């Protein structure tokens, strides 16, 4: 089976990767939110001086922050970001990413090189686009909302 083989064998770098959108640890949450909004992304990475990931801030963190106290938008982002390592090596098989998205319910996955430096971000959306690319005829050309029957009679 082609898709199954590709997911098992192809590297993560074959997935559609989003750019590494980052802010420094000293940035405020408000600055991070503005960056996410400008770039139309659901995450922002917090990188150290060497370009390694020290955290991630997502729309999910934003909800928690607003519900707790919206004044925290002016806090430094490292008070509210997640420090868990949600990264995979770019040469790991795509199946690794799919597994983490499904079983660990990750939404974003940082893709890193051999030195641990971030090279891109993928996630549920990237996996979706990869699947769609495998079925261009079936998925990419579609007629929407086809009802089984007509609302009105056709013709004059």
């Amino acid at each position, binding site marked *: 089976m082609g898709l199954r083989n590709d997911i098992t064998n192809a590297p993560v770098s074959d997935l559609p990767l989003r750019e590494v959108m980052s802010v420094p640890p000293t940035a405020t949450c408000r600055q991070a939110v503005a960056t996410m909004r400008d770039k139309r992304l659901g995450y922002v990475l917090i990188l150290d001086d060497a370009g390694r990931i020290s955290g991630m801030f997502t729309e999910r963190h934003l909800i928690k922050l607003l519900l707790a106290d919206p004044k925290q938008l002016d806090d430094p982002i490292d008070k509210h970001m997640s420090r868990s390592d949600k990264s995979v090596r770019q040469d790991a098989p795509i199946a690794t990413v799919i597994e983490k998205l499904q079983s660990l319910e990750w939404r974003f996955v940082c893709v890193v090189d051999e030195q641990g430096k971030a090279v891109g971000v993928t996630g*549920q959306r990237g996996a979706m686009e990869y699947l769609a690319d495998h079925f261009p005829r079936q998925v990419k050309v579609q007629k929407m909302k086809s009802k089984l029957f007509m609302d009105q009679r056709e013709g004059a």
Partner: protein
Amino acid sequence: MVRRKRRGTQEGEYQDPLKDYSPATYADELERSLCESDITEMEIKPFLAIDPGTSVEETMRLMDKIGIACLVVTEGDKLVGIFSERDILNKVAEQYEQIKDGPVRDVMTPNPVSVYETDSPAQAMNLMAVSGFRHIPILDLDENVVGILGPRRVTAFVQKHFEEA
């Protein structure tokens, strides 16, 4: 004037209109299922629906408590909008204190793109992968909301096929 002789069947002779029909062929069961099955073969439930008069804060607390990124806004069972984490980022974050007690109707995305439960999974995937919608409400033929589809449910559908193969 030379009159051309009519070719083809004699009057009254039956000709099968489907004699040259060849059914679609698929490389595997997953491809067949993407094109020929209904969206209901994917996991489209559970989903959360709220009234458009629900406050923004209450809606966000629900999303946070259940851990969902998106919910549908309905009047009766009819779809009127969708409210997602992206709406919070774009419309709520900077003015949360001013609008938290207001109705979600003011900040939801009205009239979202949807598909029918009789559409194929490929049609929903098209909207997600090509048009960029992360969540697609699913309607029955009476236009009532019966589910919602997100990317995780699509990858689960593909994984299920791998396990069954």
